[in-house]
């Protein structure tokens, strides 16, 4: 898959997962890596950029088994970005589906 395309989708995936609750880096990477064929390493640069853009806050939380983990919490700005990207994605995938459907009809 085209990397630029993947990047945009990845951002939407991260924001959408976080819109359903706070998570730490490994959870995000693992969840996304299981369903999409991406290098999980590229999630971390993305997390850093979105944090710098103010899409989420970061806090440390003790884990039962090991050292404290870095959790990500969506900010209002992050939630707004998620909504906008989700809308764009739906429009985009509808358009593509439309074209694919048209192809089948012929």
């Amino acid at each position, binding site marked *: 898959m085209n990397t630029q395309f993947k990047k945009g989708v990845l951002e939407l995936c991260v924001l959408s997962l976080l819109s359903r609750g706070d998570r730490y880096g490994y959870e995000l990477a693992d969840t996304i890596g299981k369903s999409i064929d991406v290098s999980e390493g590229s999630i971390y640069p993305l997390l*850093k950029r979105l*944090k710098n853009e103010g899409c989420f806050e970061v806090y440390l939380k003790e884990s039962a088994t090991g050292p404290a983990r870095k959790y990500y919490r969506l900010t209002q700005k992050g939630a707004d970005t998620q909504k906008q990207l989700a809308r764009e994605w739906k429009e985009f995938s509808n358009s593509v589906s439309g074209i694919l459907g048209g192809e089948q009809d012929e």
Partner: protein
Amino acid sequence: MNKNEFLNELERSLASLPAEERREIINDFQEHFQAGAENGKTEAQLCEELGDPKSCAAQYLAEQRPVRPEAATPPVQNANVQRPPVRPAQPAAKQGYYGTRPLPAADRRSDTAWSVAFILLVLAAFVVYPTACAFMLAPLPIIFLSSMIMQAAPGALGIVFTVSICTAFFTAGLLMLVLMSVLLKKSYKKSSF
């Protein structure tokens, strides 16, 4: 590849980032390996899933690029500190978002300015380089004429005079050469050629 190899490679590739930022990134990956191990994954498995550390580092560096003009900006101290958006605000623009991400306008502007500067400098080089060479060669005829100067101001004074003029011309020529070359190199690198 194991955890240490991955982290070493990543850290090496991030060498151009401030130490504080580099440490933060390495910490994130250390946490990833830790959490992965708790989920029963081996280091080799985790490395495989993470992919190439070099391309990972390249992504960090690419995101660093647009803020580079204000190199004086201190590294992020607190995890909660929010820096101004690195990405230019570009709402809607469906094709733009899922397609190629355009360069920020400010970046393109400065690229153009440097390109113009480079062309001007190349033109100037046609004048500057011969002049610099002439300056550097000037001591030769001066020494040739020094016998006349010696007649006008005999003794040590004449020698000091000749030597200082020769040194001045040579240094000026050398400075011109070096300065011009440095400027050319810099503008070429900054321009979009």
